């Protein structure tokens, strides 16, 4: 390695930058086939199906002379792990179709933006306590970098929808951009509360602040942000927003297949469609790891135990812990997908603007009060003030809900207007005369 040190410092910097870029991509890019396989198997298990389990199984002939003797009649099972690789090969060797009258530049640009966002989103997530284990750089605005990059994700869907010259794509793109803009806000505010809690925008500081005894009392459980009241509410808001940001079910309105064919990527095929797919899965994994970093204590073990303490400082252990936490996040993603039906568009907007955003803002204000009380009066007073605040919040919410339920008119009948046919009213109430 001597020749590396003999190079001029500028070239060394450039080389290290390239190396860091590659290292940032690998942990996000490499698991994609496994993630897809995992999702399909887990989903089929939840839906009482079998799922892909054959691809990659090799059975050698028992009689052929071509097979070496020690392999004859042996079976190798891969549990379908090769399925996603086979799918990828199929996608990349198919004929590339681009419809007429598309805006060619934008059509090609859109999947590239999606890929760019997915690859650079994780560039500030720390995989270990050392500065070398943050993929690109542990900058002092790490949290804002994540918000900034994820806000660029709207362009890919918007441009894909606009450039395809297809009504379904356009609808999908419009829905996607509206959805991303709405949920971006709540996500940012939920993260802001956690930033205030940790007192720093730097990701490693946020992780470090969670490495303390729980509530300062319980010594064997780390003080993760999910365990604090404001952290719990933030985690709920952030979790919902992160599913919405990656366009996963139940928030997959932009690509709802029974309304919009395939949404913004209706006109896409082969490689470009594959890039959209890969970007979605990479973004899922990255968002899971962001969740793990901010709320689940990052690269630390879930148990504070003196026996384990020396291993925490071995950095590859940190990487394994982070990837495991990311896998837990993925499991929740798939679980949610298997559980909830897709939201309606107005339900989506109501959830984003009327529930998550006010909740996040109120949570931010209570967090500020909490920190102030803790600084002035000590932690016990802070707990009392905080819990009283949350109690008042809950009572106000319940009162508003009660009032809204009382004043809202309950509709008894629904009418359906059919296209190109005489107007008719289908009433729920039976025995009513139907006017043609």
């Amino acid at each position, binding site marked *: 390695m001597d020749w590396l040190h003999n190079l001029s410092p500028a070239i060394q910097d450039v080389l290290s930058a390239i190396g860091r870029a590659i290292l940032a991509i690998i942990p996000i890019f490499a698991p994609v086939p496994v993630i897809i396989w995992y999702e399909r198997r887990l989903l089929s298990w939840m839906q009482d199906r079998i799922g892909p389990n054959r691809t990659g199984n090799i059975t050698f002939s028992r009689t052929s002379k071509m097979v070496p003797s020690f392999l004859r009649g042996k079976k190798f099972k891969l549990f379908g792990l090769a399925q996603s690789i086979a799918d990828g090969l199929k996608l990349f060797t198919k004929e590339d179709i681009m419809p007429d009258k598309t805006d060619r*530049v934008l059509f090609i640009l859109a999947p590239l933006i999606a890929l760019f966002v997915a690859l650079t989103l994780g560039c500030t997530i720390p995989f270990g306590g050392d500065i070398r284990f943050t993929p690109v750089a542990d900058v*002092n*605005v790490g949290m804002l970098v994540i918000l*900034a990059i994820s806000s660029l994700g*709207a*362009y890919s869907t918007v441009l894909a929808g606009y450039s395809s010259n297809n009504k379904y794509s*356009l609808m999908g793109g419009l829905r996607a*951009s509206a959805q991303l803009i709405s949920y971006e806000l709540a996500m940012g505010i939920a993260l802001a509360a956690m930033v205030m809690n940790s007192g720093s925008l730097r990701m490693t500081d946020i992780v470090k602040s969670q490495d303390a005894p729980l509530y300062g009392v319980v010594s064997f459980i780390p003080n993760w942000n999910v365990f604090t009241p404001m952290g719990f509410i933030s985690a709920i808001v952030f979790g919902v927003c992160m599913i919405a940001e990656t366009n996963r079910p139940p928030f997959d309105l932009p690509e709802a297949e029974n309304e919009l064919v395939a949404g913004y990527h209706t006109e896409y095929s082969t490689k470009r469609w594959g890039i959209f797919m890969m970007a979605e899965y990479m973004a899922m994994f990255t968002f899971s790891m962001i969740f793990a970093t901010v709320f689940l204590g990052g690269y630390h073990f879930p148990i504070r135990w003196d026996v384990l303490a020396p291993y925490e400082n071995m950095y590859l252990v940190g990487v394994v812990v982070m990837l495991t936490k990311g896998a837990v996040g993925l499991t929740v993603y798939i679980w949610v997908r298997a559980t909830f039906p897709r939201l309606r568009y107005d339900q989506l907007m109501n959830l984003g603007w009327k529930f998550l955003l006010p909740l996040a803002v109120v949570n931010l204000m209570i967090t500020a009060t909490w920190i102030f009380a803790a600084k002035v009066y000590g932690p016990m007073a802070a707990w009392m003030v905080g819990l009283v605040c949350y109690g008042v919040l809950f009572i106000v919410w319940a009162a508003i809900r009660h009032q809204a339920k009382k004043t809202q008119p309950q509709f008894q009948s629904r009418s359906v207007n059919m296209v190109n046919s005489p107007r008719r009213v289908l009433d729920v109430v039976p025995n009513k005369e139907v006017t043609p």
Partner: protein
Amino acid sequence: MKLTPELIIFAMLAGPAALAAVGVVAFGSAIRSALCLVFNFFLLAFLYFTLSMDMPGISQIVVYSGAIMVLFVFVIMLLNPKLIEERKDLKRPFGIAFGVVLFGILASQVLPVLGFEGAKPVVHQIGSPNVIGDALFSSYVFPFEVISILLLVGVVGSVFLAKRRTD
């Protein structure tokens, strides 16, 4: 002038940024202009990073590339304007000439005064978030409040404008 790494990085960022700025004006379709502008803002953020202004640079991406330009693209898609053909009238050459003259006058008056001074060592970390936060809530607290009221007025105004008249 010596060729330093800083200068190379600046050229790599500033050249495309200037091209994108020209593209905003030159492209016929609105969405192309908008994308050029996004690209320009994105590069500007990296120029801010080279000035060691982390916080303004990252808020440049969040606010401009992430929020304002998404709004622009959204509105362009929503209106899907039948391309207003740019009529070839006297406005175009006059405008370009005016711009060139403006740039010439400004550059000839401003740039020689500045000169190409080398980078002096920085003593204040004015780009870091804690310094900016401290300043926002201490010496700049009144402008901060005024800005927040302005934003509130903006929100109310845009809601009022975008509301469909239901009378």
